[in-house]
Structure formats: structure tokens, C-alpha cells
């Protein structure tokens, strides 16, 4: 087509035809496009409808677990030992913040946020989805709540959330009995049922809280809620309420427990007081204790290190795990065996010269009183804790009969108290020694077993339990923290045998030469007991109760442990106890007054 400088002639008809063709083309395009769109919607809405409908429901419906309220722990009088207190915590929804680390920095200008809190937050955050709230700081003080409440509106993605926090109103007085709950950690996650702990943040870590976790925890509830895209709950679709944990009443009398601690004062030690008939634990003291509340929302590392490094070991449960030589507190049990096997009678008299030699041996086993006790019968031997009498008796019994008698009273095995991980102590036998040391039993070891030294190790709990069995003439129940146990006959002896030993134990506190004479004045009823001293510093045989002056000169951590076992009232015993005062020196001068005073308090409370 040649181009001309003039305009080409317009051909109206052909132009219209041309445009017309193009319109037809466009119409085809439009119709095809609309059908394509229709096809697309047919695919989405008809073909893939179910899949998308499911995703829409997934979008809007969320399951929320509701934590159950933990059961309360009460003492035998109904006083609350562990409760759930309303508290406030600071939570952060990472998705809604304007920069997570900036937000936390901003918050830390308002309230102190420790390094460990930040770390814990970071761990938790990585495990949860961005729209889920993560705890930054628990148990906010009123002051902190107030400061946050003012500033919160300028900080996005931050909320103050109410919750229930476990609280132990009696603090360190019961830390070793009730224990504490703590944050669920990796190890807990492995053993806990994930369904039951869905909404839970805490679990029982030690003590009653741990042992009765299943009863205290309850069952979580469930909410099906409709949420919007921000995760805010709009509508409750279905709710299954949580089933709260059951309350637990302990046999402990908190008033008595606190009295025991008060009487111990600043001395480290353990006290166990049991009801003889039922095995109920009225007081279980391991002193010093620690504040369990510090563990509930995570104890700071430096505070924990301070507890660990404390020389009086506040974290150590003495009544449950503490292994002590029984010392002379073992003597009444040997006396029972001696009477049972007819090796002695109450009237048998032995001359105590101040030392004892095994026939054919040079080694001298000394009495705590250098000049000896002269002629002593059983009553006097117990009252004055005459070593020679029991050296000789032990040798006559032999280790097998000694072990048998001690085993009947429960030594060397768990008593079955409702607390996790009880200590067993050591009940020495021939086979035990062979297994432990690969050596035979030597006669000299029998001699010192007679005064509770050598291999024998007992826990304060075992000692109290054995004392209860003794006081009950062989009948008592296993120690319990949650109600009366069933009475069983642990040991069978004739009444005259029990009475002979009771007579000697009464003379300890009431006799004119008893090692614990004088403490009886503290108690209105007659009491029976036996003092003991467990050696810390390695002397073999010449320690006893009256040797206090020498003990006073030793540094505290080398002084002997003072022990006392006892029961009251003498004529119809109801309570039995054991007292260990660590590094107290002598049982007579230190442990016996503690025991007597506590018995007096218990009787004042009606036990």
C-alpha cells in the first residue's frame, strides 16, 4: 500500500466491518473468560468444597484446655497447708507485639525481668505458636501490676493475666513434708499424661505434692471456642468444666509441728512424733527447712546455690533420708531380745568395771563413765546406759539374733510413709557385710553393735516407728501422713518382757540416776525414753551422754549427734517420738529436754 502525503480516503463501511470483527473477537474472549471463571468456582466450591470447609472450621474453631484447680492440703485440724492464691502474671503474645525484643526491653524498664525469666520465656515461645500467649513473669507484686496497668496500653501484645498460684502459708515449717509444685520441665513431660496435663503449668515436685499428685491434680476441662483471625475468642461453642483435684487432709498437726521447730531453735535436727495406735504422723520435722514458695515460680539460681551451699543443709530431708548411728537408743531393743532368749532376766546383775574385753582378746571396750557403774540390773543398765551390760548382752545374743530382733522393729527397710524415696538405713547382718565388704563378721563388731555403733544406720522415722512398736507392746501401724493405718503386730513378746524394758526406760527420765533425769518435770504424765549419742568424730567406744564438757570444746561440726527416743504416757502410751539434734553433743543434755518439752506440748493439745 502506497503512502500518500494526503489523507487516505475514509471507507466508513470497511472500517465498521473491521471494528465489528474485532468486537466479535472480544465477545468470544469475554464468554470464554466467564466460562473459565465459572469453571474455577465450580472446582473450588463443588469439587474441593469439603476440603475448604474443613479448613474454614479449622480456622475458626479452637480447643482450649482449662486447668483444674489443685486440691488443697490441710492439717488434721483443717488448717490450710497448701492453697491456691489468686496472682497475676505478665504474658506476651509475640504476634501482636511491635518487635518482641523491643517489647521486652520496654517492659524491663517498668519491672525487673531477670535473665532466667527471659530464657524461660524464649524456650516457651519457641514451643508455641505466634498467636499463643507466653508467660514472661509470674507472681507479680501489687506494685508491679499497678505500674504495668498504667503503661500497658502503650505496649502492644502484652497482657496481665490472673491465675491461681500455689502458696504454702507455713513456709519452711512443712517444706519437707508437703514439698512443693514447680514448673513442668522436660523430665516431667516424659512421665506425665499429656492429656491430663494439657493446660497445666505446674506439677508436684517433692513431698506430698509429688506423692499424691494424681489425687491433687484433677482433670482438665475443655472449651471449644470460635475465634477470629487474631485468635480472640468470640463465642463459646462447648464447655466441659475441669474436674478439680481432691483436697487432702494430712495427719500433721501444724501447731505441734511449729512447736517442735520452735523448741529446736537454731539447732539442726529431726523430730518425728507418731500416734502409736494409728501410725499417724503428728509432727515430721527436718530443721532447718526452706521456703517452698520460692520454688513455685522458679527459684533464682543464686538463691538455689545459697541453699545448696548452706552448711546446715536446709534442702536435706533429715527425718526421711538422714542416716544416723542409733547409739544407745538401740539398747532397749537389745534388752527385749535378751529377755526373750532367756539370756538375762530383769534381775540379772552384771558388774560394770568401766571396760569390757572379749575373751581371748586384748582390745578394751570402754564405758562412757570411766569408773564404771558397779553392779547393775536391767533397770539400772537402761537408766544409766551402762555400756558393759550391753557389750556383754550383745556378745551373748550374737549378731544373728540381734539382726533378727531389729528387723522385727522395722530397721533396715522403708517404713512405708507416704513420701517419695524414703531412706532405708542399714541393718547389719553377716550376709549384708559379706555382700557389702566381702568380709566375714568379726566378733568385735558385735560388741559395738550392742551400743548402737559400727555399721548400724537408722533414720529418725525408723527410730520413731520402732519406738511406737515398742510402746505398743509390739502393736502399731505403719507411719502415715493421710489418716490412720491398720494396726499390726510387728513383734511378739510376753507382757513381763515389755514391762521390764518399760521400767528401765521410765528410770531414764524418772530414776535418781537416769541419764535424762530432770526432764520429767517438764511433763505432767510419766514418760519413758532412752538417750543416745551418735558419734561424728571417729572415736570408737568411750562416748556417752554425760561427756558434755568435752563435747563443748569441739568445733560444732565435729560434735556428736544427740538422740532421744520416748513415749508417753507411761501407763497407756499414745504417742512415740524420736529426736535427733545434729552436733548437739549428748542425747541426755540436748535431745531429751527437746523431746520432753514437745511431749508436754502434744499433751496440752490432747494427744
Amino acid at each position, binding site marked *: 500500500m502506497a503512502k500518500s502525503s494526503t489523507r487516505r480516503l475514509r471507507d466508513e463501511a470497511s472500517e465498521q466491518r473491521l471494528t465489528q470483527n474485532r468486537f466479535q473477537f472480544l465477545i468470544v474472549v469475554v464468554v470464554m473468560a466467564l466460562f473459565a471463571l465459572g469453571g474455577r468456582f465450580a472446582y473450588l466450591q463443588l469439587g474441593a*468444597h469439603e476440603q475448604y470447609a474443613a479448613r474454614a472450621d479449622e480456622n475458626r474453631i479452637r480447643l482450649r484446655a482449662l486447668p483444674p484447680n489443685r486440691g488443697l492440703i490441710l492439717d488434721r485440724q483443717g488448717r490450710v497447708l497448701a492453697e491456691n492464691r489468686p496472682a497475676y502474671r505478665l504474658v506476651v503474645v509475640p504476634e501482636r507485639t511491635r518487635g518482641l525484643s523491643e517489647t521486652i526491653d520496654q517492659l524491663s524498664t517498668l519491672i525487673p525481668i531477670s535473665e532466667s525469666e527471659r530464657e524461660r520465656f524464649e524456650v516457651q515461645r519457641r514451643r508455641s505458636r505466634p498467636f499463643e500467649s507466653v508467660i514472661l513473669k509470674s507472681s507479680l507484686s501489687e506494685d508491679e501490676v499497678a505500674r504495668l496497668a498504667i503503661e500497658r496500653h502503650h505496649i502492644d501484645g502484652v497482657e496481665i493475666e490472673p491465675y491461681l498460684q500455689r502458696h504454702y502459708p507455713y513456709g519452711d515449717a512443712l517444706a519437707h513434708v508437703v514439698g512443693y509444685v514447680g514448673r513442668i520441665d522436660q523430665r516431667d513431660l516424659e512421665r506425665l499424661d499429656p492429656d491430663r496435663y494439657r493446660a497445666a503449668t505446674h506439677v508436684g515436685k517433692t513431698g506430698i505434692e509429688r506423692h499424691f499428685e494424681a489425687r491433687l491434680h484433677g482433670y482438665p476441662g475443655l472449651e471449644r471456642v470460635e475465634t477470629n483471625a487474631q485468635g480472640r475468642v468470640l463465642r463459646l461453642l462447648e464447655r466441659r468444666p475441669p474436674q478439680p483435684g481432691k483436697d487432702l487432709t494430712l495427719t500433721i498437726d501444724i501447731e505441734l509441728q511449729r512447736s517442735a521447730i520452735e523448741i529446736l531453735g537454731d539447732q539442726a535436727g529431726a523430730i518425728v512424733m507418731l500416734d502409736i495406735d494409728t501410725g499417724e504422723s503428728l509432727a515430721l520435722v527436718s530443721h532447718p527447712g526452706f521456703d517452698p514458695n520460692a520454688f513455685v515460680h522458679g527459684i533464682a539460681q543464686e538463691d538455689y546455690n545459697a541453699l545448696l551451699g548452706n552448711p546446715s543443709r536446709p534442702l536435706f530431708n533429715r527425718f526421711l533420708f538422714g542416716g544416723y548411728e542409733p547409739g544407745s537408743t538401740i539398747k532397749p531393743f537389745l534388752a527385749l531380745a535378751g529377755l526373750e532368749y532367756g539370756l538375762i532376766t530383769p534381775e540379772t546383775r552384771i558388774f560394770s568395771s568401766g571396760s569390757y574385753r572379749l575373751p581371748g582378746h586384748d582390745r578394751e571396750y570402754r564405758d562412757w563413765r570411766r569408773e564404771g557403774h558397779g553392779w547393775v540390773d536391767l533397770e539400772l543398765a537402761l537408766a544409766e546406759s551402762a555400756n558393759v551390760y550391753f557389750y556383754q548382752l550383745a556378745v551373748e545374743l550374737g549378731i544373728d539374733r540381734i539382726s533378727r530382733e531389729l528387723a522385727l522393729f522395722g530397721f533396715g527397710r522403708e517404713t512405708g510413709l507416704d513420701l517419695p524415696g524414703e531412706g532405708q538405713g542399714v541393718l547389719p547382718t553377716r550376709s549384708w557385710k559379706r555382700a557389702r565388704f566381702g568380709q566375714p563378721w568379726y566378733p568385735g563388731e558385735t560388741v559395738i553393735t550392742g551400743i548402737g555403733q559400727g555399721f548400724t544406720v537408722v533414720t529418725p522415722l525408723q527410730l520413731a516407728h520402732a519406738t511406737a512398736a515398742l510402746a505398743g507392746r509390739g502393736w502399731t501401724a505403719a507411719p502415715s501422713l493421710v489418716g490412720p493405718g491398720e494396726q499390726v503386730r510387728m513383734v511378739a513378746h510376753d507382757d513381763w518382757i515389755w514391762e521390764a524394758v518399760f521400767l528401765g526406760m521410765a528410770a531414764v527420765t524418772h530414776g535418781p540416776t537416769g541419764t535424762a533425769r530432770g526432764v520429767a518435770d517438764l511433763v505432767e504424765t510419766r514418760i519413758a525414753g532412752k538417750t543416745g549419742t551418735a558419734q561424728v568424730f571417729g572415736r570408737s567406744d568411750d562416748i556417752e551422754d554425760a561427756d558434755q564438757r568435752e563435747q563443748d570444746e569441739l568445733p560444732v561440726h565435729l560434735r556428736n549427734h544427740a538422740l532421744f527416743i520416748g513415749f508417753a504416757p507411761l501407763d497407756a502410751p499414745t504417742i512415740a517420738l524420736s529426736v535427733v539434734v545434729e552436733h548437739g553433743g549428748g542425747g541426755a543434755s540436748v535431745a531429751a529436754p527437746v523431746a520432753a518439752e514437745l511431749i508436754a506440748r502434744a499433751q496440752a493439745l490432747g494427744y
Partner: protein
Amino acid sequence: MLLLLVALMGIGLLVLYSATENDMGTVWRQVVRLGVGIVAMVVLAQLPPNLLRQWAPWVYAAAVGLLIAVAVIGVGEGAQRWLDLGVIRFQPSEAMKLALPVMVAALLAQRPLPPSTADLLICLALIAVPVALIQSQPDLGTSILVGLSGLCILFLAGLRWRVIVGLGGLALAALPVLWYAMHDYQRNRVLTFLDPERDPLGAGWNIIQSKIAVGSGGLGGKGWTQGSQSHLEFLPEPQTDFIFAVLAEEFGFIGVVLVLCLYGLIILRGFHLASRCRDSFGRLLAGSMMFMFFVYLIVNVGMVSGLLPVVGVPLPLISYGGTSAATLLAGLGLVMGLHSRRRFMG
């Protein structure tokens, strides 16, 4: 035609009521806007086409001037798209949607068709200037739409197929250049379109949630104001760009087909009217207006159903917002005016 439009707008208001959480205030504001649009439509329908032809260069020049003004003193969050005139905020790129087709149609109508190479180059230049200005705001969607409205006229004017194929090839070749010239957020949208699950809570959220809304609607829908996706804030922009997803969720496939049919009828009717204009100015301009109406529909519905990338194009006459509805109605007014006056054309 008017009946079809009213039916469509009626359905639109119904959906808008649901999408605004039953807010009659918003619905009334939209009614007022549509009213203003209809008035504009009627007024433009009375405009003598010759006058329009004569004013074309001035209107075009004014629109370009406004676009330059936007670049210098414009306002907007992220992108500068608005001119603040004190009383109203005004988006000059909308005016260009009318001004450019008018200009190109006026130019081509003076020459014999199909256009010569020189005319073609002039037209391409006329198209390129506003497209570049709008893209620099940045507003990729509008710049493509404005460009298409001009190119459509060239097509209707009888541009030879081999030129079309050549230009198409050129456009394809230019894609990598375009990619390079795009802003980061625009590249992101394209990537997200290609794979929405790449970032399901971020950039892919809109497409995924929109498809869930559409798909969960099923055959009959969840019922008016019962859509969980739109009412629980999962669906983004339920009143504007994604209003079609609200419709699809609440009225299902049946509602979608009904509305698509309404659109189809309006477009086909529009093409029919356009093709019957007496002079080529009318045919070209009216055809372009109807084509753009169609393009809006395809781009928006394609986006909602996940066929096309997320581009901020409203659904014609249904999405909430004044400017777009006014432009479209004005364009339809031009179509009607051009058609009704054909008999007076020499």
C-alpha cells in the same frame, strides 16, 4: 441495561451489608456514592460526543498534569496516589482511566482505519506516559489497566494481527525488564501468587483465606451474614477487594453464577451498543469502556479465586469505594451517550 446495573448494585449492597458487619451507615454511604455515579452517568450520557472529541487533548493534558502533581505533592501511605484537595481526596489515576481512552479514540477516529505506523507510534507514546507515571506512584494494577484501555482501542481500531503478535512478543521480552523495574512488594505479590504456601501467615494469607472462603461456600453458601471467614476477620478487605469472596462464601456457587451472568449480560449488552455506534470514535471509546469493565471483573474475580495475583482492583460496582464506581458508571454513561446519539452522527 439500567435494569441489569440496578440489579447488580442491589446485590452488591446486600453483600456489602454483610461484609461490614451489618453496618447500615457504610451501606448508605455506598448508596450515595452509587447515586452520584449514576448522576455522572446520566450527565455524561447527555454529553455531545463531538464536544468530547474536541476536549480530548485538554482532558488528557489535564490528567497528565494531575499525575505529575501527585508525584510532586501527592499524599498516601506507602504509595503516593492521592491529591488532597482540602474537601476531597482525589486519585488522578482514576481520571486517566477515562481521559486516555478518550484521547486515543479521538486521535484514531480522525484517521482512516486501520492506523498507520506513525499513528500507532503516537498512540503508544500517549499510552506510555501515564502508564509510566502511575507505575512510579507505585501502582502496578492501575498502570496496567490504564495501558490496557489504550491498547484495547488500538485493537478495536484494527491493528494488524502481525503487529499485535509483534507487540505481544515485545511485551514478553520486556517481562524480565519489568521484573527488574518492579518494587519489592510487587515482586513479592507475584512470588506469592505463584506459591501462596510460601508464607501462609504473611503474604500468602490473603490468597489462602480467600480460597478457603470461596471453597467453604459450597453450592448454596453459608447464608447471608453467616460467612465465618468474612465475619471472623480471616478474610482480608472483605468490603473492597475481596467482596466477591464474601459473596461466594455466603451465597455459594449459585450466587457466583448468578452474579457472573449479570456481569456477562452487561458486558455483552455494552459491546452490542458500542458496535452499533455510527462513528468510529463512539465505537472505539465505548468498546474500550466495556472492555475495561470486563478486565476489572476478570482481574478481581481471578484474584479472589486464586487464578491471578493479588492486585488492588475493585469488583466493578460492588466493592465499597466511590472513585471506582464513579469512573465505571461515568464510562457506562459515555457508552450510552455515544450509542443514543449515533443517529445524529454524520
